[in-house]
């Protein structure tokens, strides 16, 4: 038995699953200023009449860190960055307590300029003076050689509550994003820690003693303990929960699009053979860019409650804002939901008020009520699908770096659309008719997010580099480094990568039967040649435990479930 809980902006959804399917689901309103209370009441309600001893797994997805970042209620962090040659690091400042210091490491991981101990101590004193308790340390090319970060941490020696080092964040190259991500981990750490310790304690009091898993932005989970080093990985886990909830219904061996149509926005995501596509480098939203592994999603400002208007050219516009609920549900402005009510597709709500709203739009468009409602419905489908196809084009236009990838690169081409969210089932038939693409409304659409959280498996990633000229193989993210000989091969590299991944996955709480769901994301091998003679090789790989669902719950996809 499994519990999945997803705290959303409006509601907190909780599901109780067995291998036969959904046993129970509850919905409680989210209290934005007291998420702990929302979580607690969700768990209390779902556990009514359930023996907590039967629960084998608990997964939680919250908006805690996302909210803190958006509302800027994070903890002050002191940042020390060591850049060396290149773009001025002041461009990546995280605030007042941000210091660019000397020292430099090059792209091969060689030290160019040492760290100045006195300089670091002086920065440490400034942090103390400013009351800083949490510190982030990032050096350029630390993923090739983290010794400067480690040295800086030693110099600051126990003066602070917690120091976050850049090379632990990701194996990917990207100094500005590493600064932002390290900062974020430090900035949300105290909040995250306090919150989940309280949740853990409360669940224990209810008799739930299994380790808590937390959902990440990449649609995978990690244990509460593992999350303490990387709390920022929990941002935007909400959209990830929904997308994971669609996977049971995705076609095997084919491409599919997931559309989560909410009240204000529609989230778009992509599945290849039931596996969601990830952002190539990390989460990016507007100007904010990070190294946080994330599902590739896009949010478009259109949903069931988007405000409808007619512009001065006599054309209908939808959103991107929401002015409250649909008129049928007591709102003041007509919305797509009102159109659904007028068309007789949706039975709930106040029919008269919905008609009144649509008539207001219909008059401006010079149409009859029903005709206008139909027009609104079509335009909404058009906007959503247009954005989807645009994103597919972007996906397929991504740059390639080898002749092989140029000629043989994968082209994403969906056969199926999976619809989620409140109005999903009304849209499914329309979209299928308009675009001749199989369109499925996901069952339990209103709690699919909690189901997605409940069934998400543990994910993680390992980046390993070998440089046989320098005689070393490293995975600095894991604090791993070993000497190698000139004969070190691709097989040797992959063996190390697999071993490190297995260890990391077990520590993050992976289910034993998902440990072989490994995928090689990258592999590159280069001869190092100087003056026309070979000096060694550079070998690089990145492997991951693929995002997906845990095993044993495939029966969720039975015909009864689809009818529900």
């Amino acid at each position, binding site marked *: 038995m499994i519990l999945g809980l997803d705290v959303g902006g409006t509601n907190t959804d909780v599901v109780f699953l067995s291998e036969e399917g959904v046993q129970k689901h509850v919905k409680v309103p989210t209290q934005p200023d007291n998420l702990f209370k929302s979580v607690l009441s969700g768990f209390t309600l779902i556990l009514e009449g359930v023996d907590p001893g039967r629960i084998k797994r608990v997964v939680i997805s919250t908006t805690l860190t996302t909210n803190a970042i958006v509302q800027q209620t994070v903890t002050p962090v002191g940042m020390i960055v060591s*850049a*060396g*040659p*290149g*773009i*001025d690091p002041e*461009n*990546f400042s995280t605030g007042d307590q941000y210091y660019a210091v000397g020292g*430099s490491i*090059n*792209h*091969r991981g060689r030290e*160019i*300029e040492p760290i100045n101990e006195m300089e670091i101590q002086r920065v440490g004193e400034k942090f103390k003076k400013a009351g800083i308790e949490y510190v982030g340390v990032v050096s*350029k*090319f630390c993923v090739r050689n983290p010794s400067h970060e480690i040295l800086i941490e030693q110099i600051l020696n126990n003066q602070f509550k917690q120091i976050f080092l850049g090379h632990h964040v990701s194996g*990917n*190259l*990207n*100094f*500005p*994003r590493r600064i932002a991500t390290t900062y974020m981990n430090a900035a949300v750490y105290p909040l995250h820690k306090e919150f989940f310790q309280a949740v853990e304690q409360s669940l224990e009091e209810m008799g739930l003693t299994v380790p808590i898993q937390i959902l990440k932005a990449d649609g995978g989970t990690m244990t509460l303990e593992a999350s303490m080093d990387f709390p920022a990985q929990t941002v935007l886990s909400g959209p990830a929960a929904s997308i994971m909830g669609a996977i049971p219904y995705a076609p095997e061996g084919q491409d599919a699009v997931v559309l989560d149509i909410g009240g204000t926005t529609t989230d778009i995501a992509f599945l290849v053979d039931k596996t969601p596509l990830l952002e190539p480098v990390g989460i*990016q939203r507007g*100007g904010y*860019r990070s190294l946080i592994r994330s599902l590739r999603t896009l949010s478009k400002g259109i949903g069931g409650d988007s405000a409808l208007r007619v512009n001065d050219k006599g054309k209908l516009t939808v959103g991107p804002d929401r002015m409250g609920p649909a008129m049928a549900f007591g709102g003041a402005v007509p919305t797509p939901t009102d159109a659904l009510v007028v068309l007789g597709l949706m039975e709930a709500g106040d029919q008269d008020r919905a008609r009144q709203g649509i008539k207001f739009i219909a008059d401006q468009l010079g149409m009859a009520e029903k005709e206008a409602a139909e027009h609104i419905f079509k335009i909404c489908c058009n906007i959503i699908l247009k954005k989807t196809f645009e994103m597919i084009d972007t996906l397929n*236009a*991504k*740059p*390639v*770096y*080898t*002749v*092989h990838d*140029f*000629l043989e690169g994968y082209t994403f081409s969906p056969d199926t659309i999976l619809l989620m969210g409140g109005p999903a089932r009304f849209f499914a038939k329309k979209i299928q008719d308009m675009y001749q693409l199989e369109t499925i409304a996901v069952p339990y659409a209103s709690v699919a997010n909690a189901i997605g959280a409940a069934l998400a498996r543990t994910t993680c990633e390992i980046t390993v580099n070998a440089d046989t000229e320098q005689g070393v193989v490293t995975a600095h993210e894991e604090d791993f480094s070993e000497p190698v000989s000139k004969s070190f091969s691709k097989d040797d590299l992959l063996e190390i990568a697999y071993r490190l991944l297995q260890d990391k996955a077990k520590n993050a709480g992976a289910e034993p039967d998902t440990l072989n769901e490994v995928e090689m994301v990258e592999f*590159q091998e*280069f*001869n*190092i*040649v100087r*003056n*026309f*003679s*070979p000096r060694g090789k*550079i070998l690089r790989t990145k492997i991951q435990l693929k995002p997906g669902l845990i095993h044993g719950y495939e029966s969720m996809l039975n015909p009864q479930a689809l009818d529900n």
Partner: protein
Amino acid sequence: MLNAPHKTGLVFFPAFDWAIDPTHPEREERLLYTQDQVREEGVFDVPEIIEYKPEIVTPEDIQRAHFCVPDEQTVTTESHLISAGGAKAIANAVMLKEVKNGFALVRPPGHHSMRVTHGGRGFCHINMEAIMVEYIRSQFGVKRIAVIDTDCHHGDGSDDIFWHDPDVLFISLHQDGRTMYPGTGFPRDLGGPNAKGSNLNIPLPPATSTEGYLYVIENCVLPVIEAFKPDLVVNSAGQDNHYTDPLTNMNFSAQGYARLTDMLKPDIAVLEGGYAIEGALPYVNLGIILAMAGIDYSGVVEPDYNPERLKQSMTIMDNIKRTCDQIMTYWGQRYEMREAAGEPGQIITRHREVFYDTDNIFDRQKEKIRVCRDCGGSFEVDSKATPGNHILGVHIPINACKACREQGYKFYDQADNTKYQRIYLQDRTKDIYEVKQ
């Protein structure tokens, strides 16, 4: 977040799975450290820097610039087609005004590739800039283009392709041919009879430093460009003038390259050579990208950069100044030189020999061109390669006058087909290409 003042397009195609041979300087590893540096700097996250996927050039694209012998497929590999396609993708982005300027960071290079190409010369099989320039002229109707070749080796392929073209200003700055492959490109080489002065070759003495190099840009290249008034400026951005390059003897720096880019303000830059792959390319490429996007590049300095050690002697500076004066004199006399080259309608013959170091081919050429004051003039090239084919190529320029068009067809129709394995016609006025076997 870092923002740039304007939009810059980038094609990054390092061809990580292609090499001439495993230990050749032009190999898989060449742009690896550049990629590492550019990624670590987060360059692709600057909202105004837009990464484009390279295209692949078609035989039709190549046929506007080359006579490939025997055909395009035999002379090229996919990597050449994608590399040239990278330049084409940037050209499209710039011409469609999606970006203000763009840089194709691609390999393998192309500027040693001449109009007649029997194979590989100086690591080049087809000429990326020439294919791109002809594409831009045909597709977008651009008239006047300047191509500034700042690779350390004489851009002899581009020099050859634009030799008779008065509408393309080609300037090559390179290490003196007496000390460096391919051994050509002297100040007196000024272009064909109808285009004298529209090709300028500026040899620089070994050990030329940033100071000397930028002196030439400021006192020679920029004034000539200003007088020529091009609609588009292209930079063949070779990076082997660097003080650590293993194949050359110059003392240029990353700061110098960035400054050069800043002064030249190319609409399109295309990577050519550059083989100091670890100590120079990561910094030089970063400097060029930042300069093109208008971002502060003052922090882009090689770890071992020591301006004192790279200081240039007075003798070298004097030598450079004399060359510049000479070039400016020639430039001032370009119209008189064209007048003196021959009478309109006259056919002028030129003999030359071309050696293909990469593929070990020796080519003897005999070229005939119609002297013309109204256009670039039609010409034929008789090319006999050992080992290889004996062919004749006829070129009619894009803006050919009536007399030259007629002369072109006369060359083509009167060619003795028992003498040649293939006879090619490149009629740029109609954008057609024909082959007789």
